[in-house]
Protein backbone atom coordinates (compact mmCIF):
# COMPACT_ATOMS: atom_id res chain seq x y z
CA UNK A 1 0.00 0.00 0.00
CA UNK A 2 2.17 2.80 -1.30
CA UNK A 3 0.93 6.35 -1.33
CA UNK A 4 -0.28 7.88 -4.60
CA UNK A 5 1.95 10.50 -6.11
CA UNK A 6 1.69 14.06 -4.79
CA UNK A 7 3.69 17.24 -4.38
CA UNK A 8 4.70 18.41 -0.94
CA UNK A 9 4.96 21.95 0.40
CA UNK A 10 6.04 23.10 3.81
CA UNK A 11 5.13 26.81 4.03
CA UNK A 12 6.55 28.99 6.78
CA UNK A 13 3.43 31.07 7.41
CA UNK A 14 -0.30 30.67 7.60
CA UNK A 15 -0.73 33.13 4.75
CA UNK A 16 1.56 31.08 2.54
CA UNK A 17 -0.29 27.90 3.46
CA UNK A 18 -3.65 29.48 2.60
CA UNK A 19 -2.22 30.81 -0.65
CA UNK A 20 -1.02 27.32 -1.61
CA UNK A 21 -4.44 25.85 -0.89
CA UNK A 22 -6.12 28.59 -2.90
CA UNK A 23 -3.83 28.22 -5.89
CA UNK A 24 -3.90 24.44 -6.01
CA UNK A 25 -7.52 23.41 -5.93
CA UNK A 26 -6.63 19.76 -5.33
CA UNK A 27 -4.67 20.09 -2.12
CA UNK A 28 -4.95 18.64 1.36
CA UNK A 29 -3.63 19.90 4.65
CA UNK A 30 -1.11 17.73 6.49
CA UNK A 31 -0.62 18.13 10.22
CA UNK A 32 0.06 14.94 12.18
CA UNK A 33 -1.09 12.80 9.25
CA UNK A 34 -2.37 10.02 11.49
CA UNK A 35 -5.69 9.85 9.66
CA UNK A 36 -4.62 11.34 6.34
CA UNK A 37 -1.83 8.84 5.73
CA UNK A 38 -4.05 5.74 6.03
CA UNK A 39 -6.56 7.46 3.72
CA UNK A 40 -3.79 7.97 1.18
CA UNK A 41 -2.42 4.45 1.72
CA UNK A 42 -5.81 3.00 0.84
CA UNK A 43 -5.96 5.51 -2.02
CA UNK A 44 -9.29 6.83 -0.80
CA UNK A 45 -7.90 10.25 -1.70
CA UNK A 46 -5.21 11.27 -4.15
CA UNK A 47 -4.53 15.01 -3.85
CA UNK A 48 -2.02 16.72 -6.11
CA UNK A 49 -0.48 18.62 -3.21
CA UNK A 50 0.01 18.15 0.52
CA UNK A 51 0.48 21.35 2.51
CA UNK A 52 2.39 20.51 5.70
CA UNK A 53 1.68 22.88 8.58
CA UNK A 54 4.70 21.86 10.62
CA UNK A 55 6.56 25.13 10.04
CA UNK A 56 3.52 27.39 10.46
CA UNK A 57 4.12 29.22 13.75
CA UNK A 58 1.62 29.54 16.53
CA UNK A 59 -0.51 26.49 15.87
CA UNK A 60 0.96 24.26 18.55
CA UNK A 61 0.07 26.17 21.68
CA UNK A 62 -2.40 25.53 24.47
CA UNK A 63 -3.65 28.82 25.95
CA UNK A 64 -5.63 28.89 29.15
CA UNK A 65 -7.12 32.27 30.04
CA UNK A 66 -9.89 33.65 32.20
CA UNK A 67 -12.29 33.42 29.23
CA UNK A 68 -11.53 30.16 27.54
CA UNK A 69 -9.16 27.38 26.62
CA UNK A 70 -7.62 27.64 23.15
CA UNK A 71 -6.09 24.61 21.49
CA UNK A 72 -3.96 25.30 18.47
CA UNK A 73 -4.71 23.08 15.50
CA UNK A 74 -1.36 21.34 15.73
CA UNK A 75 -1.68 20.55 19.43
CA UNK A 76 -1.17 16.82 19.73
CA UNK A 77 -2.91 14.31 21.98
CA UNK A 78 0.30 13.85 23.93
CA UNK A 79 0.50 17.62 24.48
CA UNK A 80 -2.95 17.56 26.07
CA UNK A 81 -2.04 14.48 28.10
CA UNK A 82 1.11 16.07 29.48
CA UNK A 83 -0.27 19.58 30.02
CA UNK A 84 -0.36 20.40 33.69
CA UNK A 85 -3.20 22.93 33.58
CA UNK A 86 -5.81 21.23 31.43
CA UNK A 87 -7.08 18.69 33.93
CA UNK A 88 -8.33 21.64 35.98
CA UNK A 89 -9.18 24.07 33.18
CA UNK A 90 -10.94 21.55 30.95
CA UNK A 91 -11.20 18.20 32.76
CA UNK A 92 -13.79 16.78 30.38
CA UNK A 93 -11.42 17.34 27.46
CA UNK A 94 -8.49 15.83 29.31
CA UNK A 95 -10.48 12.75 30.23
CA UNK A 96 -11.93 12.24 26.77
CA UNK A 97 -8.59 12.67 25.03
CA UNK A 98 -7.05 9.98 27.24
CA UNK A 99 -9.12 7.50 25.21
CA UNK A 100 -7.76 8.59 21.82
CA UNK A 101 -5.79 6.00 19.86
CA UNK A 102 -2.41 4.59 20.87
CA UNK A 103 0.90 5.84 22.19
CA UNK A 104 2.59 6.40 18.82
CA UNK A 105 -0.50 7.95 17.25
CA UNK A 106 -0.86 10.21 20.25
CA UNK A 107 2.63 11.55 19.60
CA UNK A 108 1.57 12.78 16.16
CA UNK A 109 -2.20 13.06 15.97
CA UNK A 110 -3.58 16.59 16.30
CA UNK A 111 -6.67 18.44 17.46
CA UNK A 112 -7.09 20.11 14.08
CA UNK A 113 -6.66 16.87 12.21
CA UNK A 114 -9.37 15.16 14.20
CA UNK A 115 -11.75 18.10 13.85
CA UNK A 116 -11.14 18.22 10.10
CA UNK A 117 -11.60 14.47 9.67
CA UNK A 118 -14.97 14.57 11.50
CA UNK A 119 -15.15 10.90 12.32
CA UNK A 120 -18.53 10.44 14.06
CA UNK A 121 -16.95 8.28 16.75
CA UNK A 122 -13.98 10.55 17.50
CA UNK A 123 -13.60 12.13 20.92
CA UNK A 124 -12.36 15.62 19.96
CA UNK A 125 -15.32 16.54 17.75
CA UNK A 126 -17.61 15.14 20.44
CA UNK A 127 -16.06 17.33 23.11
CA UNK A 128 -16.20 20.35 20.81
CA UNK A 129 -19.93 19.87 20.25
CA UNK A 130 -20.68 19.03 23.88
CA UNK A 131 -18.81 22.07 25.18
CA UNK A 132 -20.15 24.60 22.65
CA UNK A 133 -16.65 25.08 21.32
CA UNK A 134 -15.84 27.41 18.48
CA UNK A 135 -13.61 26.45 15.62
CA UNK A 136 -11.44 29.14 14.05
CA UNK A 137 -10.65 28.85 10.36
CA UNK A 138 -8.43 30.96 8.17
CA UNK A 139 -8.92 31.15 4.41
CA UNK A 140 -8.21 33.53 1.60
CA UNK A 141 -11.00 35.81 2.85
CA UNK A 142 -9.54 35.93 6.35
CA UNK A 143 -10.62 34.32 9.61
CA UNK A 144 -14.06 33.02 10.51
CA UNK A 145 -15.24 31.32 13.64
CA UNK A 146 -17.82 28.53 13.44
CA UNK A 147 -19.71 27.05 16.40
CA UNK A 148 -19.00 23.33 16.66
CA UNK A 149 -22.71 22.58 16.41
CA UNK A 150 -22.70 23.97 12.87
CA UNK A 151 -19.28 22.75 11.88
CA UNK A 152 -19.95 19.03 11.45
CA UNK A 153 -22.24 18.29 8.53
CA UNK A 154 -22.14 14.51 8.46
CA UNK A 155 -19.78 11.55 8.63
CA UNK A 156 -16.37 12.82 7.52
CA UNK A 157 -18.05 16.01 6.35
CA UNK A 158 -17.49 19.56 7.61
CA UNK A 159 -18.03 23.15 6.52
CA UNK A 160 -14.31 23.69 5.81
CA UNK A 161 -13.78 25.32 2.42
CA UNK A 162 -10.94 24.07 0.20
CA UNK A 163 -8.82 27.15 0.93
CA UNK A 164 -9.37 27.08 4.68
CA UNK A 165 -7.19 25.82 7.50
CA UNK A 166 -8.33 25.15 11.04
CA UNK A 167 -6.19 27.24 13.36
CA UNK A 168 -7.77 26.87 16.76
CA UNK A 169 -10.46 25.23 18.84
CA UNK A 170 -11.87 27.47 21.59
CA UNK A 171 -13.52 25.85 24.56
CA UNK A 172 -15.53 28.15 26.88
CA UNK A 173 -14.66 28.77 30.47
CA UNK A 174 -15.09 25.77 32.75
CA UNK A 175 -16.29 26.54 36.32
CA UNK A 176 -14.25 24.62 38.80
CA UNK A 177 -17.25 23.16 40.62
CA UNK A 178 -18.93 21.77 37.51
CA UNK A 179 -20.13 18.16 37.55
CA UNK A 180 -18.95 16.10 34.59
CA UNK A 181 -18.08 12.69 33.25
CA UNK A 182 -16.97 11.00 30.06
CA UNK A 183 -17.74 7.36 29.25
CA UNK A 184 -17.10 5.47 26.09
CA UNK A 185 -17.13 1.84 25.05
CA UNK A 186 -14.58 0.53 22.58
CA UNK A 187 -13.80 -3.06 21.66
CA UNK A 188 -10.13 -2.68 22.51
CA UNK A 189 -8.01 0.00 24.09
CA UNK A 190 -7.46 2.84 21.66
CA UNK A 191 -10.11 1.74 19.16
CA UNK A 192 -12.77 4.12 17.94
CA UNK A 193 -15.67 3.87 20.36
CA UNK A 194 -18.84 1.99 19.47
CA UNK A 195 -20.43 4.87 21.35
CA UNK A 196 -19.46 7.45 23.94
CA UNK A 197 -21.10 10.17 26.00
CA UNK A 198 -19.74 13.39 27.45
CA UNK A 199 -21.76 15.03 30.20
CA UNK A 200 -21.57 18.16 32.29
CA UNK A 201 -23.97 20.26 34.32
CA UNK A 202 -23.78 22.96 36.95
CA UNK A 203 -25.56 22.78 40.26
CA UNK A 204 -27.82 25.71 41.10
CA UNK A 205 -28.51 27.20 44.50
CA UNK A 206 -31.26 24.63 45.13
CA UNK A 207 -28.97 21.72 44.43
CA UNK A 208 -30.59 21.06 41.07
CA UNK A 209 -28.85 20.59 37.76
CA UNK A 210 -28.64 23.45 35.31
CA UNK A 211 -26.93 24.16 32.02
CA UNK A 212 -26.79 20.47 31.24
CA UNK A 213 -24.79 19.43 28.21
CA UNK A 214 -24.91 15.87 26.99
CA UNK A 215 -22.99 14.97 23.88
CA UNK A 216 -22.80 11.62 22.17
CA UNK A 217 -20.30 10.10 19.73
CA UNK A 218 -20.54 7.00 17.61
CA UNK A 219 -24.31 7.03 17.65
CA UNK A 220 -25.12 9.01 14.54
CA UNK A 221 -23.43 10.47 11.49
CA UNK A 222 -21.92 13.29 13.53
CA UNK A 223 -21.34 14.17 17.18
CA UNK A 224 -24.48 15.75 18.64
CA UNK A 225 -26.16 16.93 21.80
CA UNK A 226 -29.07 15.03 23.28
CA UNK A 227 -31.66 17.71 23.99
CA UNK A 228 -34.36 15.46 25.39
CA UNK A 229 -32.05 14.01 27.99
CA UNK A 230 -30.65 17.46 28.84
CA UNK A 231 -34.20 18.73 29.42
CA UNK A 232 -34.92 15.98 31.89
CA UNK A 233 -31.77 16.74 33.84
CA UNK A 234 -32.12 20.51 33.84
CA UNK A 235 -33.90 21.67 36.97
CA UNK A 236 -33.91 18.19 38.45
CA UNK A 237 -32.25 16.90 41.54
CA UNK A 238 -30.25 14.00 40.23
CA UNK A 239 -31.17 10.58 41.50
CA UNK A 240 -31.46 7.12 40.02
CA UNK A 241 -34.96 7.77 38.71
CA UNK A 242 -33.99 10.96 36.91
CA UNK A 243 -30.89 9.33 35.51
CA UNK A 244 -32.89 6.37 34.28
CA UNK A 245 -35.40 8.69 32.61
CA UNK A 246 -32.69 10.77 30.96
CA UNK A 247 -30.87 7.68 29.74
CA UNK A 248 -34.07 6.28 28.33
CA UNK A 249 -34.77 9.58 26.56
CA UNK A 250 -31.25 9.62 25.12
CA UNK A 251 -31.64 6.09 23.85
CA UNK A 252 -34.90 7.04 22.14
CA UNK A 253 -33.55 10.27 20.69
CA UNK A 254 -30.61 8.85 18.77
CA UNK A 255 -30.88 7.17 15.41
CA UNK A 256 -27.64 5.25 15.30
CA UNK A 257 -25.93 3.89 12.25
CA UNK A 258 -25.75 0.16 11.78
CA UNK A 259 -22.52 -1.42 10.61
CA UNK A 260 -20.52 -4.59 11.01
CA UNK A 261 -19.23 -3.39 14.37
CA UNK A 262 -22.64 -3.10 16.00
CA UNK A 263 -26.35 -3.10 15.13
CA UNK A 264 -28.43 0.01 15.75
CA UNK A 265 -30.42 -1.34 18.69
CA UNK A 266 -27.21 -2.32 20.44
CA UNK A 267 -25.90 1.21 20.05
CA UNK A 268 -29.17 2.58 21.50
CA UNK A 269 -28.82 0.32 24.51
CA UNK A 270 -25.15 1.21 24.82
CA UNK A 271 -25.83 4.94 24.84
CA UNK A 272 -28.41 4.39 27.55
CA UNK A 273 -25.95 2.42 29.66
CA UNK A 274 -23.12 4.87 29.10
CA UNK A 275 -25.29 7.85 29.98
CA UNK A 276 -26.51 6.17 33.15
CA UNK A 277 -22.94 5.48 34.14
CA UNK A 278 -21.74 8.95 33.17
CA UNK A 279 -24.47 10.73 35.10
CA UNK A 280 -23.93 8.50 38.11
CA UNK A 281 -20.25 9.31 37.95
CA UNK A 282 -20.88 13.03 37.43
CA UNK A 283 -23.01 13.34 40.55
CA UNK A 284 -20.62 11.30 42.69
Amino acid at each position, binding site marked *: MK*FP*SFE*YACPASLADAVALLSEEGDAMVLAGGQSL*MPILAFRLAAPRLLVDLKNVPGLDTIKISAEDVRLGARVRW*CDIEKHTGLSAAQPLLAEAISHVA*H*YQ*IRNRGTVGGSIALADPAAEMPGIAVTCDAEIALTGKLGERVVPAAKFFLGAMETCIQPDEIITEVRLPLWPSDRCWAFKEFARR*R*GDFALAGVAVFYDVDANGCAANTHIGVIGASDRPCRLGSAEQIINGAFLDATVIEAAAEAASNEIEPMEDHHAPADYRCALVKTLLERALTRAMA
Partner: protein
Amino acid sequence: MLVKFNVNGDTVEVDVEPRVSLADCLRDVLHLTGTHLGCEHGVCGACTVIIDGEAVRSCLTLAVQADGATIVTVEGLSNDNALTPLQAAFRKHHALQCGFCTPGMITTAHALLTEEPDADAERVRDVLSGNICRCTGYVPIVEAVLEARAAYANPDKADAS
Protein backbone atom coordinates in the same frame (compact mmCIF):
# COMPACT_ATOMS: atom_id res chain seq x y z
CA MET B 1 13.12 16.14 -2.80
CA LEU B 2 16.33 16.40 -0.83
CA VAL B 3 15.85 15.55 2.82
CA LYS B 4 18.45 15.66 5.53
CA PHE B 5 18.14 14.04 8.92
CA ASN B 6 20.12 12.20 11.52
CA VAL B 7 19.68 8.45 11.79
CA ASN B 8 21.26 6.49 14.60
CA GLY B 9 23.91 9.17 15.00
CA ASP B 10 24.74 9.64 11.33
CA THR B 11 23.61 12.66 9.34
CA VAL B 12 22.25 11.51 6.02
CA GLU B 13 20.89 13.26 2.97
CA VAL B 14 18.50 11.41 0.70
CA ASP B 15 16.63 12.31 -2.46
CA VAL B 16 13.11 10.90 -2.29
CA GLU B 17 9.75 11.42 -3.89
CA PRO B 18 7.36 13.19 -1.51
CA ARG B 19 5.15 10.12 -1.45
CA VAL B 20 7.81 7.89 0.09
CA SER B 21 7.07 7.01 3.70
CA LEU B 22 9.79 7.31 6.28
CA ALA B 23 9.58 3.54 6.71
CA ASP B 24 10.24 2.89 3.03
CA CYS B 25 13.00 5.50 3.03
CA LEU B 26 14.73 3.84 5.99
CA ARG B 27 14.34 0.38 4.52
CA ASP B 28 14.89 0.86 0.81
CA VAL B 29 17.15 3.91 0.61
CA LEU B 30 19.14 3.61 3.82
CA HIS B 31 18.95 -0.22 4.04
CA LEU B 32 17.88 -0.08 7.67
CA THR B 33 15.60 -3.09 7.30
CA GLY B 34 15.11 -3.61 11.01
CA THR B 35 12.09 -1.32 10.76
CA HIS B 36 9.27 -3.58 9.58
CA LEU B 37 6.04 -2.94 7.72
CA GLY B 38 3.18 -5.06 8.96
CA CYS B 39 0.13 -3.09 7.89
CA GLU B 40 1.09 0.25 6.30
CA HIS B 41 -2.01 1.83 7.77
CA GLY B 42 -0.92 2.70 11.25
CA VAL B 43 -2.34 -0.14 13.32
CA CYS B 44 0.29 -2.82 13.92
CA GLY B 45 3.20 -0.77 15.27
CA ALA B 46 5.96 -2.88 13.68
CA CYS B 47 7.32 0.23 11.95
CA THR B 48 7.74 2.25 15.16
CA VAL B 49 10.85 4.45 15.21
CA ILE B 50 11.86 7.19 17.59
CA ILE B 51 11.79 10.70 16.15
CA ASP B 52 13.18 13.46 18.35
CA GLY B 53 12.68 11.23 21.35
CA GLU B 54 9.12 10.22 20.56
CA ALA B 55 7.82 6.86 19.35
CA VAL B 56 6.19 7.33 15.97
CA ARG B 57 4.70 5.10 13.29
CA SER B 58 7.09 5.49 10.37
CA CYS B 59 4.47 4.16 7.92
CA LEU B 60 2.32 7.21 8.72
CA THR B 61 5.17 9.66 8.39
CA LEU B 62 6.58 10.91 5.11
CA ALA B 63 10.32 10.96 4.72
CA VAL B 64 10.06 14.62 3.74
CA GLN B 65 8.33 15.37 7.05
CA ALA B 66 11.39 14.09 8.87
CA ASP B 67 13.65 16.77 7.40
CA GLY B 68 15.86 18.05 10.19
CA ALA B 69 14.78 15.36 12.65
CA THR B 70 16.81 13.00 14.75
CA ILE B 71 15.70 9.42 14.21
CA VAL B 72 16.56 6.29 16.12
CA THR B 73 15.67 2.88 14.69
CA VAL B 74 16.04 -0.52 16.30
CA GLU B 75 19.49 -0.77 14.76
CA GLY B 76 20.53 2.31 16.69
CA LEU B 77 19.72 0.97 20.12
CA SER B 78 22.53 -1.54 20.50
CA ASN B 79 26.14 -1.69 19.57
CA ASP B 80 27.80 -4.65 17.92
CA ASN B 81 28.78 -6.54 20.99
CA ALA B 82 25.86 -6.93 23.29
CA LEU B 83 22.16 -6.73 23.81
CA THR B 84 20.83 -3.78 25.75
CA PRO B 85 19.18 -4.59 29.07
CA LEU B 86 15.81 -4.21 27.36
CA GLN B 87 16.78 -6.59 24.58
CA ALA B 88 18.30 -9.02 27.05
CA ALA B 89 15.08 -8.98 29.06
CA PHE B 90 13.11 -9.78 25.91
CA ARG B 91 15.37 -12.74 25.27
CA LYS B 92 15.26 -13.96 28.85
CA HIS B 93 11.45 -13.87 28.95
CA HIS B 94 11.01 -15.30 25.45
CA ALA B 95 9.17 -12.12 24.53
CA LEU B 96 9.56 -12.78 20.82
CA GLN B 97 8.88 -15.71 18.58
CA CYS B 98 8.84 -14.91 14.89
CA GLY B 99 10.63 -11.62 15.56
CA PHE B 100 8.66 -9.55 13.09
CA CYS B 101 6.91 -7.24 15.55
CA THR B 102 9.97 -7.17 17.79
CA PRO B 103 11.72 -4.04 16.44
CA GLY B 104 8.53 -2.04 17.00
CA MET B 105 8.11 -3.47 20.48
CA ILE B 106 11.70 -2.61 21.34
CA THR B 107 11.58 0.95 20.02
CA THR B 108 8.22 1.61 21.66
CA ALA B 109 9.31 0.20 25.00
CA HIS B 110 12.59 2.08 24.80
CA ALA B 111 10.82 5.38 24.22
CA LEU B 112 8.41 4.67 27.04
CA LEU B 113 11.00 3.67 29.61
CA THR B 114 13.30 6.51 28.67
CA GLU B 115 10.52 8.91 29.55
CA GLU B 116 8.78 6.88 32.24
CA PRO B 117 11.20 4.44 33.86
CA ASP B 118 8.64 3.80 36.58
CA ALA B 119 5.81 2.79 34.22
CA ASP B 120 3.67 0.14 35.89
CA ALA B 121 2.20 -2.96 34.25
CA GLU B 122 -1.01 -1.15 33.40
CA ARG B 123 0.87 1.67 31.70
CA VAL B 124 3.10 -0.77 29.83
CA ARG B 125 0.05 -2.66 28.55
CA ASP B 126 -1.62 0.61 27.64
CA VAL B 127 1.35 1.81 25.62
CA LEU B 128 2.06 -1.55 23.97
CA SER B 129 -1.57 -1.91 22.91
CA GLY B 130 -0.53 0.01 19.81
CA ASN B 131 1.82 -2.81 18.78
CA ILE B 132 0.37 -6.08 17.58
CA CYS B 133 2.13 -9.35 18.28
CA ARG B 134 0.50 -12.52 16.96
CA CYS B 135 2.88 -15.01 18.55
CA THR B 136 3.53 -14.37 22.22
CA GLY B 137 0.18 -13.39 23.72
CA TYR B 138 2.00 -10.32 25.15
CA VAL B 139 2.48 -11.78 28.64
CA PRO B 140 6.26 -12.25 28.27
CA ILE B 141 6.65 -8.90 26.50
CA VAL B 142 5.11 -7.07 29.43
CA GLU B 143 7.27 -9.06 31.84
CA ALA B 144 10.38 -8.16 29.86
CA VAL B 145 9.57 -4.45 29.74
CA LEU B 146 8.85 -4.35 33.45
CA GLU B 147 12.15 -6.08 34.19
CA ALA B 148 14.05 -3.62 32.01
CA ARG B 149 12.80 -0.65 34.02
CA ALA B 150 15.66 -0.91 36.46
CA ALA B 151 18.17 -0.14 33.74
CA TYR B 152 16.28 2.98 32.69
CA ALA B 153 15.91 4.22 36.24
CA ASN B 154 19.69 4.29 36.15
CA PRO B 155 20.33 5.59 32.62
CA ASP B 156 24.00 4.64 32.55
CA LYS B 157 22.90 1.03 32.37
CA ALA B 158 20.37 1.41 29.58
CA ASP B 159 22.97 1.17 26.83
CA ALA B 160 24.59 -2.02 25.78
CA SER B 161 27.70 -2.72 27.75
